[in-house]
């Protein structure tokens, strides 16, 4: 499959990019690394009149620390993230998550912004136009049936990017530049939980993700990302979990002062396991607690069969990776 023709723009600054986007009135796509976009365009999942490339906006390619915030430009490639000593030192879980994305041949191209803005995925959707022509057009593709749920007007396609859970767990905010100016949002609010338009940009805000601001974690914070997939490269996560623990030390041992658990690969948006967090808070980390927390976290996701993996299996995997991640974040030996 070749790409259909389109116009191509390479604005030199964000304002021009935002203007270009507005001119297209919806019939455009932003291209960052293009590793996801090109696969979708080849499958004719969309046929935009124009692509707006962010390649030449140099301000989007930096990583820096200032006032206890680490800022990462949206156009930093995953290679950039991996080779940043700042991130390796201060945000090791982000380094891990970047390493876990796709294969080594994609990471020099793929950007962190593209990962955050990644579209949701579904076994009925991420297929060629010929493939999809065997069935009625599904809701996400513009029709009025969902082949997963049989409902007319909802989409449960799954959000499967590896990087957002870690960022959410760290309390990151995203800076968006749009027609109405610049705003920042907590990353979790960027996502809509609607499989069809999974985030505010896809929902039509006309914005561009400019950068990600991650508060410098406190010294007692430990964060890990644990990805489960069948093959240790290429594959998207079956499920991935980021666990952030802020640990306190009491006479009886380590206890949890604060926590955040975020799961990808389960629903149309990253899922924060809030009840699991509740269960953890102020408790001593001991095996019984971890098992309970994992059970709760697993019950907080509602996977549905959008991939070749069964929801039952995903639930079971949730328990295991949450337990493993908690142990690692809590520094508990097997």
């Amino acid at each position: 499959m070749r790409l259909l023709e389109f116009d191509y723009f390479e604005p030199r600054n964000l304002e021009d990019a935002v203007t270009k986007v507005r001119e297209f009135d919806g019939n455009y796509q932003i291209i960052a690394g293009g590793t996801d976009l090109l696969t979708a365009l080849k499958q004719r999942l969309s046929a935009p009149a124009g692509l707006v490339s962010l390649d030449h906006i140099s301000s989007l390619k930096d990583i820096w620390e200032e006032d206890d915030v680490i800022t990462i430009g949206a156009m930093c490639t995953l290679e950039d993230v991996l080779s940043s000593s700042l991130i390796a030192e201060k945000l090791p879980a982000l380094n891990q998550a970047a390493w876990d994305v796709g294969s080594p041949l994609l990471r020099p191209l793929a950007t962190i912004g593209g990962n955050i803005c990644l579209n949701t995925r579904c076994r009925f959707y991420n297929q060629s136009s010929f493939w999809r022509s065997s069935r009625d057009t599904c809701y996400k593709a513009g029709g009025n049936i969902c082949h997963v749920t049989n409902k007319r007007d909802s989409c449960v396609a799954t959000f499967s990017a590896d990087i957002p859970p870690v960022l959410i767990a760290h309390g990151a905010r995203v800076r968006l530049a749009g027609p109405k100016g610049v705003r920042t949002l907590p990353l979790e609010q960027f996502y809509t939980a609607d499989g069809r338009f999974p985030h505010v940009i896809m929902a039509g805000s006309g914005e561009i993700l400019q950068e990600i601001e991650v508060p410098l974690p406190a010294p007692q914070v430990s964060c890990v990302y644990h990805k489960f997939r069948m093959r240790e490269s290429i594959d998207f996560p079956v499920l991935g979990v980021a666990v952030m623990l802020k640990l306190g030390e009491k006479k009886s041992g380590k206890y949890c002062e604060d926590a955040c658990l975020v799961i990808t690969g389960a629903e149309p948006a990253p899922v924060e396991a809030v009840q699991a967090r509740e269960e953890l808070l102020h408790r001593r980390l001991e095996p019984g607690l971890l098992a309970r927390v994992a059970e709760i976290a697993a019950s907080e996701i509602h996977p549905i069969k959008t991939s070749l993996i069964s929801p039952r299996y995903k639930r079971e995997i949730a328990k295991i990776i949450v337990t493993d991640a908690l142990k690692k974040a809590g520094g508990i030996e097997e």
Partner: protein
Amino acid sequence: MEKTIRLTVNGEEKTLKIGVQQTLLEVLREDLGLTGTKKGCNQGECGACTVLLDGKPVSSCLLLAVKADGKTVLTIEGLAQAGELHPMQQAFNEKGAIQCGFCSPGMILVAKSLLERNPNPSTQEIKEAIAGNICRCTGYLQIIEAIRSFVS
């Protein structure tokens, strides 16, 4: 829409008029006739189309050629110098790492770039480096052997 880009391919600087919808893979294979770079899936899943872009291995089927403007590309054709196989090509051939040969250009380029970054990779690091390049023929063992032959 057409665009003119400048590309250094295998040491030669080229000015090319391309369609913006062309991938680097298409430009290399079709416009420049460099068919050593292979297309196995066209979707970023197999590594047959690997080239070194500013020294880093990437899937050229997922890269718009316009995005390579101003960059340096090394394809498999640029590796052997003056009729002499590059040592990595030599090692692949001697260790039996080439069967049908379709994955070989990509594998060899990845291997070369790995050793430039990390002259002493462990077996695990070798496997990780070639984890995006699928080979159906060899079961990878002789490929790993060939790369390991450079490790002291």
